[in-house]
Structure formats: C-alpha cells, structure tokens
C-alpha cells in the first residue's frame, strides 16, 4: 500500500514519517510511506495522513495555497473514501470552523467547532504532556488497553457536535476530544508519533485498517 503524508510545511513531518516507517517495519515493511503534496501522488495513495502543528489559520492557509491540494483531498477522501488520519491540527481542520486568532473555516467534514480549552487556575494551558484516553471499541484501538497515556500538546480543542463522531476522550479542565471518527475519516488530538510504543501501535492499526 502507498501511504501519503501530506507536505504543506508542517514542522513535524519528519517525525510523522519516521513513526510510520517504524510501524510499517513492525508489520513486515510492505507499505510505501511517502511525503508529498502532489495531486498525482495523492490519487495513487491508498491512505492519506495530514499532520499539523502551529495555528489552525496558518495550517489551513498553507493547505489552500498549494495548487489543487484541497480539491484532491475532497475527491480522494470524501468522495472515494480513502482511509484518512489527521493528527493534532490535522484533526482539528476537519471541523466546521475554529475560533483561534479570529475565525477560520475548517474542512467541515466532521461537525463541530475548535475552541480554546477552558481556563482554570489548576490547569495550565497548553494541555501539554501525557494523558490517558478512554476509547470506544474500534479496530483502530485494537490491542491497546483503555486508560493508556498518549502525548498531547494543544491549547484549543475540537468540540464535536455529534457524539457518534467521538472515538476517544481525555480529561483536563473539561472533557477533551482525543480522537474522532466518521466512516473512513479518523483523527487524533494527541500525537501518536510522539507517544512512544502506544503511538506506534495505533499507527500500525491505522495501516491495517479497512473501514467498512
């Protein structure tokens, strides 16, 4: 299979690629992990990964600035339903809109909005570090125990409108969406590429995932 990690200048691209390569090796190394933003590569992809660090508006703009990228993503993911994984801001971009340094439209693939995490004197923002998640039974979380720790770093979170699109949650100053799901579209607020063996296991699951 060909896995394309979308290159739109996100800083953590290298780490994401290395973690996917590591997961791929654990599975026998049969997948081809490619970094690209080229429409023709995306058309050949079997699965697509969208990483993201930085602000929502900057990431969205960087994607829109690449010729035919967004149209190709819609075609490959929404219409052809190729398995997709968004990471951190790459997951938040699935929302309808975000309220972060102004208001920005998201992709609108999963209903909800991205807002600032609730302020509380006992909870420092960003929500930074390892926090345990609770998830619903799903092939993407197979062979992972509930309450395992994953690495988070974010100040804004995805308030998902329809509870059935929430696959995992964590707790901070308020409940936080840790993973979303809608058919072939998967996203994590935490960074699997920085979550040591738990993260690699999750990536293995994504590589093996065939959404029904």
């Amino acid at each position, binding site marked *: 299979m060909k896995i394309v990690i979308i290159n739109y200048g996100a*800083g*953590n691209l*290298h*780490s994401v690629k*290395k*973690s996917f390569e*590591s997961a791929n090796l654990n599975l026998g190394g049969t997948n081809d992990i490619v970094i690209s933003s080229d429409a023709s590569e995306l058309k050949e992809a079997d699965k697509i990964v969208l990483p993201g*660090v*930085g*602000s929502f508006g900057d990431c969205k703009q960087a994607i829109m600035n690449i010729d035919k990228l967004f149209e190709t993503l819609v075609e490959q993911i929404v219409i052809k339903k190729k398995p997709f994984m968004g990471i951190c801001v790459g997951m938040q971009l699935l929302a309808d809109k975000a309220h972060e340094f102004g208001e920005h439209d998201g992709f609108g693939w999963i209903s909800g909005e991205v807002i600032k995490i609730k*302020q509380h004197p006992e*909870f*420092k*923002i*960003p*929500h*930074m*570090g*390892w*926090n*345990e998640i609770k998830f619903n039974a799903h092939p993407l979380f197979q062979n992972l125990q509930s309450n395992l*720790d994953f*690495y*988070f*770093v*974010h*100040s804004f979170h995805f308030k998902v409108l329809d509870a059935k699109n929430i696959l995992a949650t964590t*707790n*901070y100053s308020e409940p936080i969406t840790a993973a979303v799901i809608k058919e072939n579209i998967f996203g994590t607020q935490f*960074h699997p*590429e*920085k*979550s*040591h*063996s738990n*993260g*690699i296991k999750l990536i293995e699951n994504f590589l093996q995932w065939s959404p029904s």
Partner: protein
Amino acid sequence: MLKKRIIPCLDVDNGRVVKGVNFVDLIDAGDPVEQAKIYNNEGADELCFLDITASSDNRDNLFDVVKKTAENCFIPLTVGGGVRTIDDISKLLHSGADKVSINTAAVKDKTFISEASNKYGSSTIVVAVDAKQVKEEKWNVFTHGGRNETDIDAVEFCLEAAELGAGEILLTSMDKDGTKSGFDNKLLNKVTSKINIPVIASGGVGTLQHLHDGITIGGASALLAASIFHFGDFSISEVKRFLAEQNISVRI
C-alpha cells in the same frame, strides 16, 4: 489525569554529551543519540538537549544529533542553546526537534518570543530562564549560560514571556544548579502560582525527595534533571516508581 513529566537533559558540546557542575568543569561522557535511546527506553516523558557549543561553526553537529535522535526516539524532544534567530528555530524544527528553547535572545529582545510563537505556535516555544537570587524574595535573570547578570526580575520575566506567547517556561536556578541540594522551590512556587503555562523545574536535583518537592512545593508541571540520570544515581523508572508511591501522577 495529566502526568507530571520527567525530562532528562543532555548538555551537548560539538555533538558530544557533557554535564557541568555550576556550568563549569565539564566532563565528557558519551554519545547523545545513544544516551537519548536509553532514556527513551527507560520511560522518559520527553528529552532535552542543551547545546553549549561555543562556536556557531560547529552547529551542524547538533542538527545531526537532533535528526538521529528524532529518528530513533518517539517522544518529544526540546532543543536549546544558542538559539538567536527565527532561522535557528526553523532549522532545529526541521531537524526533528518538537520544541525549541530560547534564552539569551528572549531576554535581549522580548519581541523575539512573540515573533517565534506567532510563527511556530506557542506550544513549540519554550522560554528558558536562568535565575539567581540577589536578595530576600528577589531573583534576577542571568544570560549567556549564567555568566551575565541583568537587572530583570526573574518572576516578572516568566510572566511576561507567557503573555508574549511562550508555551512553557524552563526555569533554572543558578544557585542550585549542580549542588544536588534540591530545586529552588521558593522561586518555582512564586512563578507557578501566578503563571498559566507549564513550568519545568531545573537545577539542583540530588535525591528522589527533591523531585517530589519540585512538584508538591514548587508546583512544577515537569522536572528536568541531568546528572542524577547521566551518572546513574537513579534510573528514570526508579524516579517514576518513587513518585507514584507518593501519589503523584506519572506515566509508568
């Protein structure tokens, strides 16, 4: 519940690991990539590299170390030391660092903090503050690896850095660093009780109890230590077991 983080720090000079006592008397002791792998396997929550290479001509060694570490360790990596420009940050992030810590450059020009966090996101920018007590209840910021004193109040500076967009403060006590007599919990508490971003405590760890106190008295979100791990006084797993027994939430 969010876990308190244990962060081993490696001082790197020309691509090799060193650790200074009170920032002098450097003792060479190993390859940073190999060290990082050991910490990664032992359960470190993050890694930190502090580059102390004097000449900027030798920075390429650091980028190489960062790149190799990021390829082998799937936990967050913070890199600092000699970061002066946006371009320095960009190079480190593209080498594989997740966070970049800025110190002297942030003190010299505070707009550098906002510029950096606007460009790369708050959570990528750590402001490292070296503080030394100058009188009762008063700490000043020091720069250039602790050599130069400023008249800037350290507590105020931390608060200001947070306002300007720092995602985290790495607060090192110059009085405590290398002494193994515990963190400066008074200083830590002054900052953590007022600030709304995570603070990493640094400087002075000698015993397991010191780590515990940095969290319970100092209010730190994360603990950074170099020598106790590097010279094998304690392993990361020993530290975590101890803290867990004291009902501190850590990732085991």
